[in-house]
């Protein structure tokens, strides 16, 4: 049978299923756990994060220089070799990983907060407010933000907070649209009407009843935002606009590696590999979550 017809059939079955209500999350969880790529990606990601965090307490310092040693290939002393200043690459990759993951999570969180609040308010209030608010989003969409982020970084220093704010401010637009769409689809449901009838304030309805019910697609999109944020940070670092020495990130390490790759290719390959594997995991996990939380998908 063709896929579309298949989908259509399952749509009917699933809608009936959703009306039972409570089983949506457990259903999604079951579907996710069957997606081996997504689960594997999730575990690997967790492992990478744990190793990066534990890296604070184990092994060498990411700053400790050993100029007489210089760049060396991977060995039993330095598993991933050393860089131009004799610094241990493993320690530097772990440190850079902490920064990259931190930027990914914090900037995603910033975009999440702005996007969810904006989208919910716009969708719930509706009418003129909604059309004005969405028109603003449409206009902002056409603005090439990457240009402003770069200008911001060049002009006003390169500190971590600015990176969080700048990237978070770029990424919230899509989130706002997704959330608004969700809110529009549930705001006429009976439980919202009940809340209104009970005389709850608008704020309380938004935060207690609407946001918890639109959280599914938000989680999916957030998972897919993390890799794009990490990429953006890496792009900035690669252009020399991201985190500054002595701190480092995967993007900055890749830049150093690209400059030295002719003689010392491991300086490029290891940080590049670390970033690629992490993005790989995040994308698989995001895709898996999207499939699992999409109620219209097939049941298996």
């Amino acid at each position, binding site marked *: 049978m063709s896929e579309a*017809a298949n989908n259509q059939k399952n749509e009917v079955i699933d809608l009936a299923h959703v009306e039972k209500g409570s089983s949506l999350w457990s259903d999604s969880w079951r579907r996710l756990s069957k997606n081996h790529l997504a689960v594997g990606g999730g575990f690997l990601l967790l492992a990478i994060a744990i190793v990066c965090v534990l890296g604070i307490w184990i092994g060498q310092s990411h700053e400790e220089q050993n100029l007489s040693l210089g760049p060396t290939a991977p060995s039993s002393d330095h598993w991933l070799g050393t860089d131009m200043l004799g610094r241990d690459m493993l320690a530097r990759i772990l440190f850079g990983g902490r920064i990259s993951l931190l930027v990914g999570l914090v900037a995603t969180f910033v975009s999440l907060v702005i996007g969810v609040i904006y989208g919910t308010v716009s969708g719930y209030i509706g009418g003129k407010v909604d059309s004005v608010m969405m028109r603003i989003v449409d206009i902002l969409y056409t*603005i090439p933000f990457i240009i*402003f982020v770069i*200008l911001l970084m060049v002009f006003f220093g390169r500190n971590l907070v600015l990176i969080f704010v700048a990237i978070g401010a770029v990424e919230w637009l899509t989130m706002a649209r997704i959330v608004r769409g969700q809110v529009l689809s549930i705001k006429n449901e009976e439980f919202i009407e009940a809340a209104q009838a009970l005389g709850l304030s608008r704020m309380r309805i938004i935060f207690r009843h609407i946001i918890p019910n639109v959280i599914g697609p938000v989680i999916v999109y957030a998972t897919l935002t993390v890799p794009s944020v990490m990429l953006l940070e890496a792009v900035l670092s690669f252009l020399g606009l991201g985190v500054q020495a002595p701190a480092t990130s995967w993007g900055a390490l*890749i830049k150093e590696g690209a400059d030295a790759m002719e003689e010392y290719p491991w300086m*490029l390959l290891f940080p590049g590999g670390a970033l690629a594997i992490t993005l790989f995991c995040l*994308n698989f996990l995001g895709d898996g979550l999207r499939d699992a939380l999409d109620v219209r998908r097939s049941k298996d």
Partner: protein
Amino acid sequence: MIRFILIRLLQAIPVLLIISVVTFAMVRTAPGGPFDQEVKMQDEVKAAIEAHYGLDKSAIEQYFVWLGNALQGDLGPSFKYPNRSVHELIGDAFPVSLELGIWAMLVALTLGVGAGLIASTRPNTSRDYLPMSIAMFGICIPRFVMGPLLILVFSIYLQWYNSSGWFFASDRVLPALTMGIYYAAYVARLTRGGMLEVLGQDYIRTARAKGADEKRIIFKHAFKGGMRPVVSFFGPAMANLLAGSFIVESIFQIPGLGRYFIMAAFNRDYFLIQGTVMTYAVLIIVLNLLADILLVWLSPRLRFD
């Protein structure tokens, strides 16, 4: 259709104004000026130079002078390259970036659509999994890793191509691949998805029932509809293309718009920054519009809205 285009063009005007104001404000509030060099200039000399470029006027006045000139096609002088106008510099750099973009798009479309078509005709077989797994790698390896890797393999180990520059036809290969492979991966996924959806439609079944051969079904009946996701991807992809052009031009030292923009930002080359930003903005708006027009043409149902 003409009305739709006109409305979109009218809507672009406030967007361009906003972009120009924000850029202008950011540039002028940035710490450091274009004439703050290591060797300190005498105050009178600096004042004289600034007066020459009209930088002694109030910011608002400066903006309107710039806007008035820009509307007449004069984007102002460059501080870093005193003999050349911003107009000339962009005239040199833009075709380079455009050529790079076109090559990258060709790579993306040939590889991406090809792989997507192969995968969609035999879904869930090895002919589907293999190209799609490669595509996933293409998406996850960032361009600034892919670029150096290609240089490492093809110019350092194999010595087939130069590692940087933009002089010979062969210099186009590595930058176009670096930029194109990333898009090819997305295009492959979108093509597969779009084609699978269309191939499940009733009219395809009808065509099959009437005995049309598979090639004809795919290219004559399904292809146009199946390409819709790819086309709608291209509008938003343009913004991404910018980030790509900054990166790729900096890796391969290509004298394109992206490199001029970054250098101008570091040099506080006010008019050059403003000029490159406006060029990008116009470019994005035009390309988005083109993508939308193409989309309407591909899906007749949208035609009358």
